[in-house]
């Protein structure tokens, strides 16, 4: 059984948005649309309506006063650009309060709130809010006058040599002019550990360790006295 809804809004583009949204949900059936509240009174007398999408600021009769004239109002969802009517809306026992411009996922949430028994709709496939580029975490280092991208997962360990650091990755070695401490601040502290004045090691690549030495990819890396406690605590 489809939910019969009515859109009341004085601005045509605003009605357009709601119409589109309603059409995208199979459980909703659009019974009509009105550009003012007076027109809506007639509509409500003629047909059964389950859900009203109601704008507040409209010429002649505003949404709130219109709502007060109704004896047995259907479920109401306010759609408005005004934030200040929210409290009044809740006093009138409305189902939800949507702020323009309305996101589709928020719209669905409001409909689900008005008719909780309906099977909830998965918002994911319909309308991706704003896709986030899921990429692996990386950093860039300057080496040989160009910027080299290094995936954090690939880094085995980093060794400092005076003004330079050598970044050993699973497939190559990059030499860049930077201090080891500044490289340390670039790396997530949960995944990397300073084991020595001149070494940072990727925790995930550690194969074995003793009190003095950590082995990463068959390379032995010393543990400095100052760092021993922290290292052993973590491992």
């Amino acid at each position, binding site marked *: 059984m489809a939910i019969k809804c009515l859109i009341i809004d004085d*601005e045509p*583009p*605003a009605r*357009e*948005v709601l119409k*589109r949204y309603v059409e995208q949900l199979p459980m909703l059936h659009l019974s009509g649309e009105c550009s003012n509240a007076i027109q809506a009174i007639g509509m409500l007398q003629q047909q059964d309506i389950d859900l009203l999408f109601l704008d507040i*600021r409209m010429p002649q009769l505003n949404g709130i006063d219109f709502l007060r004239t109704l004896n047995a109002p259907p479920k109401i969802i306010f759609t*408005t*650009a*005004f*934030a*200040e*009517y*929210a*409290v009044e809306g*809740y006093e009138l026992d409305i189902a939800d*309060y949507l*702020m*323009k*411009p*309305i*996101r589709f996922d928020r719209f669905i949430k409001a409909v689900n709130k008005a008719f909780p028994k309906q099977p909830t709709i998965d918002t994911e496939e319909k309308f991706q809010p*704003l896709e*986030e*580029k899921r*990429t*692996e*975490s*990386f*950093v*860039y280092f*300057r080496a040989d006058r160009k*910027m080299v*991208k290094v995936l954090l997962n690939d880094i085995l360990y980093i060794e400092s040599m005076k003004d330079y650091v050598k970044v050993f990755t699973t497939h190559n070695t990059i030499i860049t*002019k*930077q201090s080891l401490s*500044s490289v340390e*601040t*670039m790396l*997530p*502290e*949960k995944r990397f550990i300073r084991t020595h004045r001149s070494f940072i090691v990727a925790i995930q690549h550690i194969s074995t360790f003793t009190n003095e030495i950590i082995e990463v990819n068959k390379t032995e890396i010393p543990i400095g006295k100052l760092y021993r406690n922290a290292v052993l605590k973590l491992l």
Partner: protein
Amino acid sequence: MTEHPFIFSNEPKYRIQRHLYFWTSWCLFQTILYGFVHTPETSFMDRLPSSFIDAILYMPSHIFLSYSLMYFVIPFYILRHKYVLSAIWIILVILSSAALSAFTSLYVINPVRSFFLSPSAMAACALTNNNSFFFSLMAGLRGGISIGGMAAAIKLMKHWYTEGQRNLQLQKENIQSQLQVLKAQVHPHFLFNTLNNIYSYTQNTSATASKLVMGMSDIIRYMLYECNQPLVPLSKELTMISEYINLERIRYGNQLELHIELPNEDTCNTFISPLLIIPFVENCFKHGLSNMLEHPWLSLTVLLDGNQMTMKLLNSKPATTNVLHAAGIGIDNVRRRLELLYPGKYELVINNEEEVFIVNLKLELEKRKDLNILSQEPILMAAHA
């Protein structure tokens, strides 16, 4: 001010209390100090009774000097910027208190001492007595100036402190009211209705445009309505940040390399002061990325471990950007806000390397369970605004 009523309150109870404390400690201090006057015949303990009497008897002249400075010279001349008159009055007041003190030492001290003390103790005291009026005047000057100066210093310090606090408060209110004026000018409903209409027309033509309008609206709404709250859910702030990055990255086409990692878990129960993180991201785009020709990149990682939020923000920047520019005024403001809002609960380390700008922020946030329902309802929060 209410935190330290003992110091700042004007209630008679506290005023009397603090003045009593002040004079009692001064009296004790004088007693002990006079007790050390070198007299080979008597010990320190023997001198205490007589030095106590001295301390009490000299008090009227000290009190006279202190109060005439605090309640006459300071409020009527110094604070009204009448500096020449102030100087004249200070000299007059000091001299008259010295005269009072000299009169005390010449005509009052000995009769009172002989009334209370044994003859032997009197003899010991007699050695240190100096009966010349000039000498007594000098001695009076010395004691009077030290206590009068101290009292005046306290009075002035308190005055400047309260004045400073008030100015700060005024500034705050001023900014607040400016903000209100700005808000009133924007007419939010006009803005949002228009954005909604634009959104409506872009729906058929361009999905990207729709998304941009929506993102823009969300950010404006957040800034206008929800940032009046002292705290917002962390999830809100983070959503705004990704929206912001999404809007900004349009400018770079596909050039900008992004890595964003936000907490997976529910962050609705964790609260943060609004617009605390956005300035850092803004800064990335403003000073770093927008000037880059070659390979702009940005990596933002926010982790939440209990209450502890860790943010790591790296962005490329051109090697030529000067240091002053790289950390803008925005960052200074955030640092100040952190200091005010999260004293002792934050750790902000900014590294400005040659080609990368690194911000590490650790922040102890607030967890609130009971606010959950309210906070997920942005509209209700807006309604309070």
